[in-house]
């Protein structure tokens, strides 16, 4: 037996190489200076280097736009789906870097480490979006997750942060273990680790006749559901979101979801495409349950981060709808919604970060009370984001839902489209509660002066009364909100972006 080393297309691997190099530089360079990397200069250096790395990677990815290639003997595939999802993750990371400026967590974790871990996670996501083989799939999902476990716990002086990290580690490991176990079954049943090979291996047998493969697929789906916080595997989401440093929460909410959905799509629409009829109903039921559970869970949440966590669960349910139909339109809608979700969610999280540092209320809804009068530049982005997440017209959220519903109706899943409509209706109750707190007179709840809730102990998070005016918080909020409105009125560029992604698979 002769062994042929795979051909390395370094050009197409360059985004991954750039990210890896970035991780090393960001980690090591600040150590060269004095003070062992904890000084302000070290943090500024790593911030700048991280942004530079992200920009380089984005450039290298765009270079390969519309030019799909298989890499490393088909273990990876750099196509427009991978590129679009990676770009979403990179954009989310760039926002996170801005939101992390002066973030206590970033300072406590030491200069380079925080940013290096962030880049490491982005590396995992970029890899995951390209993964076309069970092995790269698993390696990528671990590369993505392990830095996040640590990042969640970087706010060392806050108990909730440590708790969140531990919780995420345990639940995440469980998810990964289930995933790996399922992969083993799948390999046993189909005789291949390659997605295309799996499709060929189980193609003639049929899904229901082969319990080995069926169990494997079920476990892989469960593992992915953990990562994308699909109900009933979502319970960790609100807890982890609440405890993690807020910039990291925003990163997890957008980027992890995008990357995990990318592989979700690739796995189900490539490896399991021939058996679509068998898994579609199961995923549709999961999506419907997720929409209901997420939206109902978010009602009555006082912590904005928990609220956004549950809303993220519900949104994952909507997005899963794009996968259920197993069609090109479905993938288009899914990528479009993820891109829109980037803008909608980051606008909200930027404001939450700003208010968290500015007031003593932490992420409690009281932190945004009267914001319309006090800080219109923050109130507008949060308002726009809430309306968009609820699917109101003239925002990207409306077009995203329109796209998803169109795909669902076309794929004969009209009942799931009705679920999306009903879910959006429930969601109004909590999204508008936030809007009402900002613009309308406070109702029955009396504003109390006691600060300590949801992880805001004064010594851990020093209050910066000017945080609501800092450019690195206001600019991301405004930028994201502008994106929400712009793509709500002129969605065609984003539609074309998403159509490229869909065309890569079908």
């Amino acid at each position, binding site marked *: 037996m002769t062994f042929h080393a795979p051909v390395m297309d370094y050009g197409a691997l360059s985004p991954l190489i750039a990210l890896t190099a970035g991780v090393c530089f960001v980690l090591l360079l600040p150590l060269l200076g004095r003070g062992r990397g904890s000084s302000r200069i070290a943090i500024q250096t790593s911030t700048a280097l991280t942004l530079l790395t992200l920009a380089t990677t984005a450039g290298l990815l765009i270079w390969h736009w519309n030019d799909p290639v298989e890499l490393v003997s088909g273990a990876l595939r750099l196509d427009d789906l991978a590129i679009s999802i990676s770009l979403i993750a990179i954009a989310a990371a760039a926002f996170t870097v801005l939101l992390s400026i002066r973030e206590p967590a970033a300072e406590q974790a030491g200069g380079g480490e925080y940013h290096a871990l962030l880049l490491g996670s982005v590396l995992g996501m970029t890899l995951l979006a390209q993964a076309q083989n069970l092995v790269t799939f698993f390696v990528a999902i671990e590369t993505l997750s392990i830095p996040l476990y640590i990042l969640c716990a970087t706010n060392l002086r806050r108990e909730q942060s440590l708790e969140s990290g531990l919780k995420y580690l345990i639940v995440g490991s469980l998810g990964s273990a289930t995933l790996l176990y399922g992969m083993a079954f799948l390999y046993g049943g189909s005789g291949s680790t390659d997605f295309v090979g799996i499709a060929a291996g189980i193609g003639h047998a049929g899904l229901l006749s082969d319990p080995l493969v069926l169990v494997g697929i079920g476990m892989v789906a469960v593992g992915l559901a953990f990562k994308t916080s699909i109900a009933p595997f979502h319970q960790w989401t609100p807890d982890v979101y609440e405890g993690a440093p807020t910039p990291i929460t925003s990163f997890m909410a957008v980027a992890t979801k995008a990357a995990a959905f990318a592989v979700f799509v690739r796995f189900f629409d490539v490896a399991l495409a021939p058996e679509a009829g068998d898994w579609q109903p199961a995923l549709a039921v999961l999506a419907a349950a997720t929409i209901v559970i997420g939206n109902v869970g978010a009602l009555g949440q006082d912590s904005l981060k928990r609220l956004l966590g549950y809303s993220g669960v519900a949104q994952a349910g909507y997005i899963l709808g794009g996968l259920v139909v197993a069609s090109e339109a479905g993938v288009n809608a899914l990528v479009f919604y993820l891109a829109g979700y980037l803008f909608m969610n980051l606008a909200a999280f930027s404001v939450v970060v700003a208010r968290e540092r500015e007031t003593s209320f932490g992420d409690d809804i009281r932190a945004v009370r009267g914001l319309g009068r006090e800080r219109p530049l923050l109130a507008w982005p949060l308002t726009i984001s809430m309306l968009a997440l609820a699917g109101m017209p003239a925002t990207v959220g409306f077009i995203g839902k329109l796209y998803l519903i169109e795909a669902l109706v076309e794929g004969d899943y009209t009942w799931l489209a009705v679920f999306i*409509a009903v879910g959006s209706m429930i969601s109004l109750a909590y999204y508008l509660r936030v809007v009402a707190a900002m613009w309308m007179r406070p109702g029955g709840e009396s504003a109390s002066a006691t600060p300590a809730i949801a992880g805001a102990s004064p010594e851990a998070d020093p209050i910066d009364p000017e945080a609501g005016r800092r450019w690195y918080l206001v600019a991301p909020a405004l930028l994201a909100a502008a994106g929400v409105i712009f793509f709500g009125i002129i969605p065609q560029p984003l539609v074309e972006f998403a159509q490229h992604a869909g065309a890569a698979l079908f």
Partner: protein
Amino acid sequence: MINSLLWTPLAFGLLGLFLPKRYSGWWATLGAAVTLGIAIALLAGFDSGAGLQDTVDVSWIPGLGVDYSLGLDGLNVFLVVLTALLWLGGTAFAAFREQERPHLFFLMMLLAETATLGAFVAQDLLLFVLFFDLMLIPFYFLFGAWGTDREDGPTAAAATLKMLVYTLVGSLLMLVGAIATAIIASQDGGHHLTFSIAELAKHPIAAGSQRWIFWFFAAAFLVKMPAFLLHGWMPDAYRAAPLPVLAIFSGVLAKVGAYGFLRVVLPLFPSATVQFQEVVLVIALASILYGSVMAFTQTNVRLVGGYSSVAQLGFITAGIFALRADGADGAVLQMVNHGLVVAPLFIIVALLAERSGSEDLREMGGMAMRAPVLAALFLIVTLATLAMPGSANFIGEFYILNGLFQAKIVYAFIAISGVAMSAYYALRLYQRTMHNRRPDTIPSREIGLRDGLVLAPLVLCIVGLALYPQLILHRTDPAVQRSVAATKGPPAQAQLAATGLKPTYNVANRPVGGEGR
């Protein structure tokens, strides 16, 4: 032209943000006036013989088959003018008064105008749904942030949230319904995806699909009106709303629902319309009876207005669902009439509330004493509300009842009781506020010049229409005929026959079979 009609209000609203606060009200009034000017110019150039005119049609999201397509025809041209007119009145009335955060208030007012005009002129189904939903956002802010909190009830924010959830239940389902209509039509016809209402109306989808999509649309429109059983949001929202905004809201927004039936439901789902005609008629009658009874038991003047709108919208719905041209003609005329009546009514309520400091009928009275002009204006509005012979409302109701008599005589008999009851509640409102003994605490003041400038033109329009209702009837008739004809055409009947659901009544209103009952 139609583009400038649509976007002028929003443009003025956005520019107004850069002006000093004290001018923003006047600027907004100017914006509304310019919009009215454009609307009148469009009406002047309107050719009642031609179909859709002043059209704009550009591809908006080609990837999703959505077009930016606008147009005027007999169905919407007067509603557009009504919208522009009432907005000018409401904005001017608000501008005469001190508003908190005026920049935002007037921006929201003008955004609401753009959205409402958009819903009226949209000729693309999805664009219609978009504007229909968009209308709610500014009203949510206007009601919630500038409304009054009740001590014994929900806060303004809670009341407006209730309104929004109610109305969106319908309109989100409508979004699904709209998409389903277009996709089913494109799959059946084998052509590319389009949401154009005219295109979709050419080949209605299969009767089976029509049946459920019909209810998705009907839910949205009936909640908006609001119709009986779906009116739960109305009392709280009406009590919370600031009055100038409520005048517009009640005058225009309810009509969007009725308009939606004529524009979308009848042409696109003809066989479902025929099939469910009686169900909707029952809802309409229930609205008439319930609304009238509630209107003469309420003591809050806003709710008298609110419940009378429920009853009036019941009439309009009944007129549309007579599925005859005269009934629908009357419905269109009555939409304009009701808007012209209810908006001044709420402005008068605002004036009365300013004088008496209360919105409770029991605490008012005798205000006509030193205010003959106000009393005269109010009397005209009242007489028009109760559809006094000689008013345009009389002609509208006459057409509606005439259509209903010929279509479904039983329903017409019940509906007639609503006419009688409207006399009771309208006169009761007038009498209790303007006549009776005057409580000592209430000053009887004449209407101010500025408020008179708002009110008098609206009342003049009522009088003008009473003298010359043909202005509307003549122009709307061809479009209404087309809309109603869809349900009469052979396709609708043939589809019904194919599904085994023949109409249960023949022309002589006698039962012919038992299948559908």
